[in-house]
């Protein structure tokens, strides 16, 4: 079981003109087995929410709380959060020159588990995870994300999701820039993760397209740093038809 609880979260970033508040009081509870979609226009703060949960140093939490099974996440370092069971699939996965995918995955798995995985089964697991997302297994010898296409980077994120198997996965616009085949592959990966039954997913997206493949239990509309509306999957359909206009206007 795992519950990620976000209470009245306020987050700001430093700008040339001083700190600017991006998140203005976010409340959200993700229980185990639940998939929540967060949808919103550009600049509404969706990615800030993702990065704040993961602990990116650029974002300062000014008030509120984030807890995972009652434990204070905000007091943890970035790596501690990952070891506690949080995972962030990034919109723009970072290239790490000179570090092979194989080395990266093994180092991450070792860190998460507290011990090195057994070599033989591990190689099998890595190859299987890569094959499931139609990644050539020779890519394990390439440097992390270096020279990967946009789609390959996203599939590599799903490989990590599969291998590290966190309690709660935050997917930040994992669907952006994917063609329909890649979108299906990535969605299937997320669905395999969900099928374990006790995993939480926070799916951040700008488009409704991915929600045809990953059925959310709850949909939240994110506008101007907070949740403006919430509902079930039907809310996504409504957004598909009407867009964000009425929420954006209401927020101004």
């Amino acid at each position: 079981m795992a519950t990620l609880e976000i209470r009245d979260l306020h987050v700001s970033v430093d700008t040339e003109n001083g700190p600017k508040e991006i998140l203005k009081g976010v409340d959200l509870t993700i229980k185990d087995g639940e998939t929540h979609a967060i949808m919103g226009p550009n600049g509404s703060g969706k990615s800030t929410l993702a990065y704040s949960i993961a602990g990116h140093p650029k974002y300062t939490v000014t008030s509120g709380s984030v807890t995972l099974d009652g434990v204070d996440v905000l007091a943890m370092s970035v790596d501690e959060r990952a070891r506690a069971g949080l995972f962030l699939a990034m919109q723009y996965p970072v290239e790490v020159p000179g570090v092979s995918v194989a080395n990266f995955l093994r180092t991450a798995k070792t860190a998460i588990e507290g011990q090195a995985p057994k070599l033989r089964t591990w190689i099998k697991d890595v190859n299987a995870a890569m094959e499931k997302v139609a990644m050539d297994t020779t890519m394990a010898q390439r440097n992390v994300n270096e020279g990967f296409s946009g789609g390959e980077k996203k599939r590599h994120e799903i490989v990590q999701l599969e291998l590290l198997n966190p309690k709660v996965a935050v997917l930040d616009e994992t669907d952006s820039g994917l063609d329909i085949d890649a979108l299906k592959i990535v969605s299937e990966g997320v669905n395999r993760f969900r099928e374990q039954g006790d995993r939480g997913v926070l799916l951040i997206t700008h488009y409704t397209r991915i929600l045809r493949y990953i059925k959310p239990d709850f949909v939240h509309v994110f506008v101007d740093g907070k949740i403006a509306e919430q509902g079930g999957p039907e809310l996504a359909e409504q957004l598909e038809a009407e867009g964000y206009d009425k929420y954006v206007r209401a927020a101004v």
Partner: protein
Amino acid sequence: MTVTEAPNVARAVETSDKVASHLHPTPSYDLADHPVPTGREEIWRFTPIKRLGGILEGEASDAHLTWETDLPEGVTLRQITAEEARALGESLPADRPSALAVANAGGAMLLDVPAELELDTPVVVRLRGSSADDLVWGHLVVRVGNHAKVAVVLEHAGSARYAASTSFLVGDGAQVSAVTIQDWDDDAVHLGRDAIRVGRDAAVRHSAISFGGLVRLNTEVVYDGPGGEAELLGLYFADAGQHLEHRLFVDHNAPRTRSNVDYKGALQGEDAHAVWVGDVLIRKVAEGIETYESNRNLVLTDGCRADSVPNLEIETGEIEGAGHASTTGRFDDQQLFYLQSRGIEEDEARRLVVHGFFADIIKKIGVPALEERLMATVEAELEKNVGARPGAGA
């Protein structure tokens, strides 16, 4: 990052034997041609002259480094006179320290690799100084015969005030990997000069690896015929208060020659100073050549300084390609965040990133026996930083 592509025009400078570059005084054995620098000269302006322990004054000394060698079968090492070294065709000294070294060393050591000898194990020369009180003049000639294939590793350790001229005379069609490792104690001063003559169709890879001591190393390449290739690699790690200076000069004086310069360094700690000056001269005769030089610095802490000066002097536009790149960057926080977000602790993440930064250079050095050791040394250097950082590992 700045990437400069050579313009496809020739500059109207006619040169023959004389080096036109202001960065490179006319080579000469005559000490009068290499006056004691004040520090304001272009070629000395980055060097902390006051910290050179009086080497530039050129006092006589018969102190030596201790030599320990691994000489595979067929390779010989013997003493020759300075005149004999000159007759072998070594490049003339291009600055005061190398001119002093040749003048004061009282003869040279000749490391001789006969023609067509192909070796699987490297020639290793371990040079060790016992004290920074010792002033040592060194003069070494490495001669590699035609079509020979060899790796030569020169390791410097311990302490000394050391000025040396090392010549690599590489025969036609030979393949040479030369590695010079400067892993001195902190109080050592090393003013070195590696002058490489690349034979027709020969391929030379020279790797300068500097971890410790005050080091100023000139690497010079000149071609004895067309078709020669020089790959000049460098790896350095400057700590607090340390000065590591690498100067390169590739003289494309023959057609269809190639050069590739790739130096990478990390800096950490207050007043860590790295200097890289890369100069490539493409003479009028050097048609169809290709050259690229790159220097990348990774700044790990505040208080460091990296000077990086690429320079290209072009006298013919009839070339395949010429360019350079120089970057000096802070540690990439995005990389760190990405690795940490996968559960990897900050120290380990830093190690991975620095590892990754140096990994391609270490692989390119092409002496497998060294790879692991160099990575270990990089890790040990990094440890100083990671260990010293307040709150590390918390």
